[in-house]
């Protein structure tokens, strides 16, 4: 198996659009790697450039240390599953699965064995003689996967593998896919615009925007510490609160509020008519910042609390299943916060919001980049 090294890669379309714009990336051997971003961010182009379906304008792509930048797609040792699966409608499932082998002139008997085995791995028993048109969406997806696996590529590329499935099936397929990847241990790169999918499946995620890499990290990292407001906005099923604020004090009462175990300075930032504790090492007092805090990391209380907090009244509460997303009007700014469903307050209730300092992220007001460069607290 093999890793992928991408250096200074750019893919420019004939119309001048730089779909991939000077990218460096390394995918480790056996890693399950997600390319995440909104549509048009260049993630699919990047995948297709790795596959060789688009040709790189600049930079290199290496698979298993070999430079494949200028190789034909078929010679790169990659397997790919397309968003629409691209199952050949005139071939049976079995013919579809073994087409990559047929291309390489593998003997029919061997092909039959592979079809039998692969279909077993992917629970496609009894469907081998059907045609793609007679299969359900989930079955089609598994046939496409089976075909990719049967081709024995060193790297598996998946373009939006779950987007063509309905919601319920998607969860099932997600679990299936993750297990399959772990079982096979094949280096896998997949493209998705669904952050939840990326968080759930990937070992590491590359978040892209406008052809550039915006953040690279484990699902936890990109969730808990988005390195810029773009990623902050994009990741998470409930949107992160991003509110203008001012660093009001470099410390509170001269001591760390809590969790300041690494010794970084903890100060406060004032926003929305109140203030919250924050790691302010990289921001002097009086600096204008964008304060980012996930609704999940805010604590809601109906009683008064000491220390930096936000005060407001409940506007509306949305049920998220076991949790509720409560919108609180804090001095004209709406702040979202999640609470267990049994704690859901009635609209109009005055509430107090608090958070721990390392959950409160400060972003540069202009560039939107994360200010505090301290290492992540979570691990």
């Amino acid at each position, binding site marked *: 198996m093999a890793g992928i090294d991408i250096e200074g890669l750019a893919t420019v379309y004939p119309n001048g659009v730089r779909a991939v714009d000077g990218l460096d990336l390394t995918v480790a051997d056996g890693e399950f790697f997600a390319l995440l971003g909104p549509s048009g961010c260049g993630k699919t182009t990047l995948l297709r450039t790795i596959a*060789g*379906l*688009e*040709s*790189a*304008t*600049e930079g290199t792509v290496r*698979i*298993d240390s*070999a*430079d*494949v*930048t*200028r*190789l*034909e*797609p*078929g*010679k*790169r*040792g990659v397997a790919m599953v397309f968003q629409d699966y691209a199952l050949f409608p005139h071939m049976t499932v079995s013919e579809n699965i073994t087409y990559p*082998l047929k291309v*390489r*002139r*593998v003997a029919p008997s*061997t092909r039959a064995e*592979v079809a039998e085995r692969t279909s077993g791995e992917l629970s496609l028993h009894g469907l081998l003689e059907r045609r793609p048109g007679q299969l359900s969406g989930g079955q089609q997806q598994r046939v496409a996967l089976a075909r990719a696996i049967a*081709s*024995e*590529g*060193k790297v598996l590329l998946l373009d939006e593998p779950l987007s063509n499935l309905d919601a319920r099936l998607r969860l099932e397929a997600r679990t299936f896919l993750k297990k399959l990847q772990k079982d096979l241990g094949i280096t896998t790169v997949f493209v998705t615009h669904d952050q939840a999918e990326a968080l759930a499946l990937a070992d590491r995620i590359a978040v892209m925007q406008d052809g550039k890499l915006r953040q690279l990290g484990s699902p936890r990292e990109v969730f808990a510490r988005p390195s810029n407001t773009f990623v902050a906005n994009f990741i998470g099923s409930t949107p992160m609160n991003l509110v203008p604020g001012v660093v009001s004090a470099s410390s509170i009462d001269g001591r760390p509020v809590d969790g300041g175990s690494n010794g970084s300075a903890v100060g406060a930032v004032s926003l929305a008519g109140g203030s919250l504790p924050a790691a302010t090492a990289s921001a002097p007092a009086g600096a204008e910042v964008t304060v980012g805090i996930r609704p999940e990391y805010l604590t809601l209380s109906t009683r008064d609390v000491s220390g930096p907090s936000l005060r407001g009244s409940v506007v509306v509460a949305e049920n998220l299943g076991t949790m509720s997303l409560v919108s609180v009007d804090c001095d004209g700014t709406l702040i979202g916060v999640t609470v267990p469903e049994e704690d859901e307050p009635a609209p109009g209730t005055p509430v107090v919001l608090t958070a721990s300092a390392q959950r409160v992220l400060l972003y540069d007001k202009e560039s939107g980049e994360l200010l505090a460069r301290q290492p992540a607290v979570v691990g």
Partner: protein
Amino acid sequence: MATPPESVPVPPVPGRPARVRGPAQDVAGLGIGRAVGFLAPALLLIGAFLVFPAIWTIYIGITNYRLTGVEAVSPSIVGLSNYTRALNDALFHNALWLTLLFVLGSAIIGQNILGFALAWTMRRARPAVRRTVEALVLLAWILPSTVVAYLWIAFFDRDTGTLNSILGTQGTAWLIDYPMVCLVLFNTWRGTAFSMMLYSSALQAVPPSQLESARMVGASGWQTLRDIVFPHIRGHVLTNTLLISLWTANDFSPFLLTKGGPNHESETVPVYIYNVALQGGELGYSSAISFLLLIANLLVALLYLRLLRRRS
């Protein structure tokens, strides 16, 4: 079990700046060289049997060439006099006008509307009904034109014709008294299949949800067509209208029915070109008119392009 092919590192190509030459850009790895090769046989045949004769036609359009007589041996260049003659030729004006009527009546209105109506109504008709109607419409389209001409001559016949039997109007010489109406009917009958098929596939692209929401808000059938369906198939309508207009304007089959008669009353431009060339033997003049028709085609196509651009 075969092993995947080894990746071979490729040494960088020296002296090639910015753009690195990768695998072929197109989806099948054809490359421009082979693509041109794919085009070559078709272009060769088109060049030999359409472009070359067309250029030749343009050339003899400025001569007084004839197939027989003195001008056959020594044709002389007469400049643009064939064109100035066309501008003052009442019969050519007549032919242009009739062609316009023919295109307007049979293509733009007849085939277009009937074709769309069929495509629209047959969507939800019972399969048996749909198959029967579609088969008939298509049959009218695929029968050889020589055969079709006999069918319609029989249909319109003055004495024993089917139309007269149906209407009880024995003795009405439809092809003589109403030649253009007959031709419009005939060509609508003949060509509706194309529009029907094209619109059928176009209508499949209209999201059913939008049609349903139109019904929910109580839009009438016409409002639904205008507000929901038409915007979706506007491109198809344009393409279809262009194609059938061009085909109809250049259609020679009116000749088989009326030979342009009576007294030039159904002599559309292609029929006029034929009559000038064959009956009159004036290949030079007929070529000049052919070229004028080609220019008219070009103008229509350009207009179409403009309309299509405005859409996007």
